[in-house]
């Protein structure tokens, strides 16, 4: 099981890199931003048209924003080491608690999108790949190419207009019921599903033209038996590898899709944190997204190891 240890170790290093990169980068960038941080915080707290210089001064004193940057950063890193992400400058709540609440929504959305990409996409790709050049293959691949070229936000809007307005089947916003999940998950997952369908199709073609497939036929297995026995597992490896590389797209999509559908997840919170210059919140959300990325990568690695014994050595 050396492969598993190696893979996890590699991802652990990545997790450390993410932490260092996010904490350092966010802080530096936010320091470089023009404008008064205290005023932004005051705006976030009291509404934009109630902000006065007096309330900003109160915020400044309360949060210690007048201390030197290095001191603030060191304090943050020290707290981070103890698992304390600090307190949101805007809401005054603990970032850990806020992120924990958002994390559930983001994970729900990402996993729904991922399962779409992992189930629907490859299944279609498999069928297309079994008859390369067939009607399903050609139509499917044209559709997949179109879906991959569609920006996530355009796809989201299209889905909203079609299912939310024209057909009226699904709600266009909200997050408390299962039906709310459908459109965001589709917007996020369809592109990935299309891409993985394409990869699964190519992998299926590769598997069915591989020597071992031919050998299975020569040994007397029917084509259907040979497909069932040898294609799914062999096609899974490139699909998983592709997904692993493209998980970044998923995480990027989360930011856009959550904003579009008002999904109360980390991506949404991140864009708000940037706007409000809420350093702890920005770091907390960026860190969480980065770590989700790492965790999904780690899961993909393990799945690939499970599917492909050659990499376990």
């Amino acid at each position, binding site marked *: 099981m050396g492969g598993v240890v190696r893979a996890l170790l590699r991802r652990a290093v990545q997790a450390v890199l993410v932490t260092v990169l996010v904490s350092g980068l966010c802080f530096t960038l936010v320091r470089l931003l023009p404008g008064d941080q205290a005023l932004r915080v005051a705006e976030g707290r009291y509404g934009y048209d109630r902000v006065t210089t007096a309330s900003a001064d109160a915020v400044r004193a309360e949060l210690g924003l007048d201390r030197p940057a290095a001191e603030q950063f060191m304090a943050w890193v020290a707290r981070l080491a103890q698992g304390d992400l600090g307190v949101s400058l805007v809401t005054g709540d603990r970032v850990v608690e806020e992120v924990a609440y958002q994390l559930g929504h983001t994970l729900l959305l990402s996993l729904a999108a991922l399962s779409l990409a992992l189930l629907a996409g490859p299944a279609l790709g498999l069928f297309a790949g079994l008859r390369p050049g067939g009607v399903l293959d050609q139509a499917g691949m044209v559709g997949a190419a179109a879906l991959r070229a569609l920006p996530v936000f355009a796809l989201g809007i299209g889905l909203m207009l079609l299912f939310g307005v024209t057909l009226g089947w699904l709600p266009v916003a909200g997050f408390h019921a299962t039906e709310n999940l459908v459109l965001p998950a589709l917007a996020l997952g369809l592109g990935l599903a299309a891409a993985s369908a394409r990869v699964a199709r190519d992998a299926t073609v590769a598997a069915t033209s591989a020597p*071992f497939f*031919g050998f299975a036929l*020569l*040994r*007397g297995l029917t084509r259907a038996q040979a497909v069932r026995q040898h294609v799914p597992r062999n096609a899974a490896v490139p699909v998983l590898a592709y997904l692993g590389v493209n998980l970044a797209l998923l995480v990027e999509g989360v930011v856009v899709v959550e904003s579009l559908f008002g999904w109360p997840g980390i991506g949404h919170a991140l864009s708000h944190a940037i706007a409000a210059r809420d350093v702890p919140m920005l770091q907390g959300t960026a860190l969480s997204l980065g770590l989700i990325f790492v965790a999904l990568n780690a899961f993909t690695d393990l799945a690939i190891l499970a599917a492909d014994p050659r990499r376990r050595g």
Partner: protein
Amino acid sequence: MTPSLTIEDLRVSAGGVALVRGVSIRVAPGVPLTIVGETGSGKTLVAEAAMGTLAPELVASGRVVLGDAASEAGDRAARRHLWGRGIAMLPQEPWLALDPTMRVLPQVAQGHRFVRGLSMAEATARAREDLAALGLSGAATRFPHQLSGGMAQRVAVAAARAGGAPLLLADEPTKGLDSDLRSAVVALLRGALLAGGSLLCITHDVAVARALGGEVMVMLDGEVVEHGPAETVLTAPSHAYTRRLLAAEPEAWANDAIPGAGEELLSATSLAAERGGRRLFEALDLAVGAGEWVAVTGPSGCGKTTLGNVLLGLLRPAAGQVRRRAGLARTRYQKLYQDPVATFAPRLDLRTALAEAAALHGVPWSQLAAMLARLRVPDALLDRRPDQVSGGELQRIAIARALLADPVFLFADEPTSRLDPITQQETMAALREVSRERGLAVLLVTHDQAMARKVAGRQIALRAA
């Protein structure tokens, strides 16, 4: 006894060009039939016609009788239902023919389960017996990449025969195997015969035919030129081609090893090398003199190529020292490769590639052209890209290219192992001629003991690491 396989008057053609003409064979139980021939002789097409796996664009005629089922050779689907049941095919390079993501046992069990229709448990039990019979009990839970070449070969035989077919078809079963593994494969095939089956073997290796015995058929350009019992055909060939084929076996080569060692060009003292942290060899002392041929032999993975690369300075030794003669440019130590295609820029025509190398060494084109002519390389070939030239021709071009640097030492890394026997003999002869003429020392890596004996004045045998 009724024959297991009969092919009558087989003809295979592509676009009106006949690739196989008038081939008739008969395979009887217990008597192996070996078809020997070089690349392009059509021998593989015969096997494919028997199975019904000919490429769709090929037109075939003739009759194929498998067991008691007769069908037209062109009717590919007719024999489909006999795969695994009546006829089993042993794949080339069996390590590629096994599903890399599946353990050995279930792959062998597939034949019992899906072809014989046994239950899962029963199929698994039978597969376990099959593996045990081949001495592979320990390998049942391994994955293909954890098998050695010989083990993969045996697993493939077990998997191919699991469906219970009496006829085994083996197409180039020794391709890519070391010579010492070849005898194991032959033993394996003979084992299948002993179990009451019959065997059709396709090979370019006369040694395999000799070891298998039974009947031998020699094919050239789509036709059978000679057919008869192995001992007759291989000892008293009647056809000129068969005689050339037998003469091309290194065993039959003239023993004209070049003994004369001139001044020392290269020496190594207490040399050691490692690969992936594993010691390949150590405490090796070696000196090569001008014009000398030294052969390096040993099983795969023992470090033969590594030794040559260390001597050329391409790799750093783990210990010890290599000394090349002072005053000689590094470019006078050259190398020939096993696969010449990989040593040329793939998108560049050969003329440009050679012209640039000639210009680099200040060799006029006329001199290079003369050398190419001596090596029997047609000038027209030079306008092609490396992958459009046959292996033997390209290897001769590679020799000409290496000679541009006026080398004193040539490391030849299995330069002929991928060539047909006759081409191999020709290429080797060309190299020896050049060497003798220029006093070029050659370090030849080969896994063919016979060749080493015939050409080298000295041998270094490396042990498996």
